[in-house]
């Protein structure tokens, strides 16, 4: 008698198929490698957006510090790649060969202890998940157990983003400073820079993205997903139904952090460098804007938001670099005022009903009404 027996409802299934068709078939066939690599860069933000849908859209926890986790994931990956690029042969002109170039420039003569384990790819992959996950666990526990929430939590995440940026920039010898980690070359001896490698990395990223969509959708459909929604509305009622609200918030925040970190790691691989400009306050807020524009209640909507806003950013900032930030601000205001559920809300309100009528005329089947969470709007 109850719905939800399927993993995706019909409109979500259409969103899934549309996204898979665009990312797996249409874009690789129509774009040159340079543009495809740009899409790969946009998609790294889609990981962050999925996390924000769970954490902000469902759980009501607005984090303005997702750049922190994106950065931690990205830096973990970049450290591994940088170490591999800094072999003794590659760096024999340095005064200390075998360490990353920026360390040599900063008069560091031995690899710091926390860099040592990043020689191992297994450790690196674990670190990409665990370092941001544990960091989110610590922040989440400290905040949510003390009932810090809402605006205060958002401001604190902003502060964390600012602190991490300052730390990275200040500790030049250990982190590469403001320039970040550049000149990343190979992954286990496999060159990540040529065109065919870019194409393979693109597909790896899309597969990972769909894995994350699957995980997020699974969480959304369990009772935990419904508790997140319940918590967003009536925190006290959840508490007095016998749940520890803090633990559920911590879980949502950690999941969002891990998704963001996977995006960051893919960024380092696809774009070939990592720098503090993807960690701080501005990128963190931009990530929230992508999610809001796409639709914070919709996994597919948020992914489209990340792709489209970044596409607009690239095109507009190429032609009008000064105007872009104003445009982004205006877009965010427009979304909040005019269509709070973003593109997916517009899709659900205007496009979906037409499609439904089309279906309904063919097979008259009533009884499902779950369009509160609809899919994203496919680009033309």
């Amino acid at each position: 008698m109850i719905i939800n027996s399927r993993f995706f409802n019909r409109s979500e299934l259409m969103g899934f198929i549309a996204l898979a068709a665009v990312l797996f078939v249409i874009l690789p066939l129509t774009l040159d490698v340079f543009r495809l690599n740009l899409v790969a860069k946009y998609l790294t933000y889609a990981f962050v957006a999925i996390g924000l849908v769970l954490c902000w859209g469902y759980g009501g926890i607005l984090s303005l510090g997702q750049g922190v986790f994106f950065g931690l994931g990205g830096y973990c990956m970049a450290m591994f790649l940088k170490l591999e690029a800094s072999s003794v042969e590659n760096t024999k002109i340095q005064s200390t060969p075998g360490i990353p170039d920026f360390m040599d420039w900063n008069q560091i003569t031995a690899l710091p202890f926390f860099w040592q384990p990043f020689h191992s790819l297994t450790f690196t992959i674990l670190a990409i998940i665990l370092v941001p996950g544990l960091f989110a666990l610590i922040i989440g526990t400290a905040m949510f157990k003390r009932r810090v929430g809402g605006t205060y939590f958002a401001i604190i995440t902003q502060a964390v983003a600012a602190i991490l940026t300052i730390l990275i920039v200040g500790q030049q010898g250990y982190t590469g400073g403001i320039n970040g980690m550049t000149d990343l070359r190979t992954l286990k001896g496999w060159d990540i820079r040529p065109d065919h490698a870019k194409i393979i990395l693109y597909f790896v990223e899309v597969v990972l993205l769909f894995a994350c969509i699957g995980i997020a959708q699974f969480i959304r459909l369990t009772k935990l997903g419904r508790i997140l929604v319940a918590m967003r509305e009536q925190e006290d009622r959840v508490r007095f139904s016998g749940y520890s609200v803090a633990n559920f918030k911590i879980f949502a925040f950690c999941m969002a952090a891990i998704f963001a970190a996977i995006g960051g790691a893919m960024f380092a691989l696809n774009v070939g460098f990592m720098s503090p400009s993807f960690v701080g306050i501005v990128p963190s807020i931009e990530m929230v804007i992508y999610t809001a524009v796409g639709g914070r209640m919709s996994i597919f909507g948020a992914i489209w938001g990340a792709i489209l806003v970044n596409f607009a950013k690239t095109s507009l900032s190429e032609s009008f670099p000064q105007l872009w930030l104003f445009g982004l601000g205006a877009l965010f205001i427009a979304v909040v005022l005019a269509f709070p559920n973003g593109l997916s809300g517009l899709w659900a309100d205007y496009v979906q009903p037409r499609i439904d009528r089309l279906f309904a005329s063919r097979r008259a089947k009533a009884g499902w009404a779950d369009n509160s969470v609809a899919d994203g709007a496919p680009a033309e």
Partner: protein
Amino acid sequence: MLIGHQPKEFLLAVSGLTVSFDGFKAVNDLSFYVEENEIRVIIGPNGAGKTTVLDLICGKTKATSGSIQFRGKELTKMKENEIVQTGVGRKFQTPSVFEDLTVFENLEISFPRGRTVFGSLTFQRDQLVEDRVEEVAEMIFLKDKLNTYADELSHGQKQWLEIGMLLIQDPDLLMLDEPVAGMSVSERAKTAELLNRIIKNRSVLVIEHDMKFVEDIAHKVTVLHQGQILSEGTMEKVKNDPKVIEVYLGH
């Protein structure tokens, strides 16, 4: 007064309970005892501390001093969700239901299973859950609204839904804060009927202003005034207490 060793096992024993907000004592050295299967109504003028007493018992507000024993466990040291798990349920004054979820999902969340993060990830909607939800939905007159989103319910229906959410928790002590406030006459009658049915095999602590309703259900009435007990006993006794008439019932 009840002093020293109690021959009878009380379900809830509140003793010397005090809470002060910046020096203002909302509840002042309050002691009362609720027996098994007793229906206790707390009445009193506005600001008497009635809601604060419920907040203290369910852990929403922390006591400044005093003790609250529930089946021998000290509630003042426990977290809200632990208090719920020991068997205390609380309904709020304004209906607090999850409006973006259906009636079924609202009731399901309150079903006492899978209350940890991992438990809720692996929670299965099995026959037991569905049967229990349907049973409760029938009791609260919402059987044909299981797939309706809660924001489409009327005020009275939301109140019933919240009562249903408590019912499915199956608490030993049910605390209701003005359950019939804002209800129509017919809804009031239905609610009284509902409460009379659900209070079997459990103790109930009710705050209510509607004297007719209080007379209908109360075993014992406690009158609060300025955070202290003014009078306690049967409705008959309390109604004829000159102090009560002066501060509360007289006008």
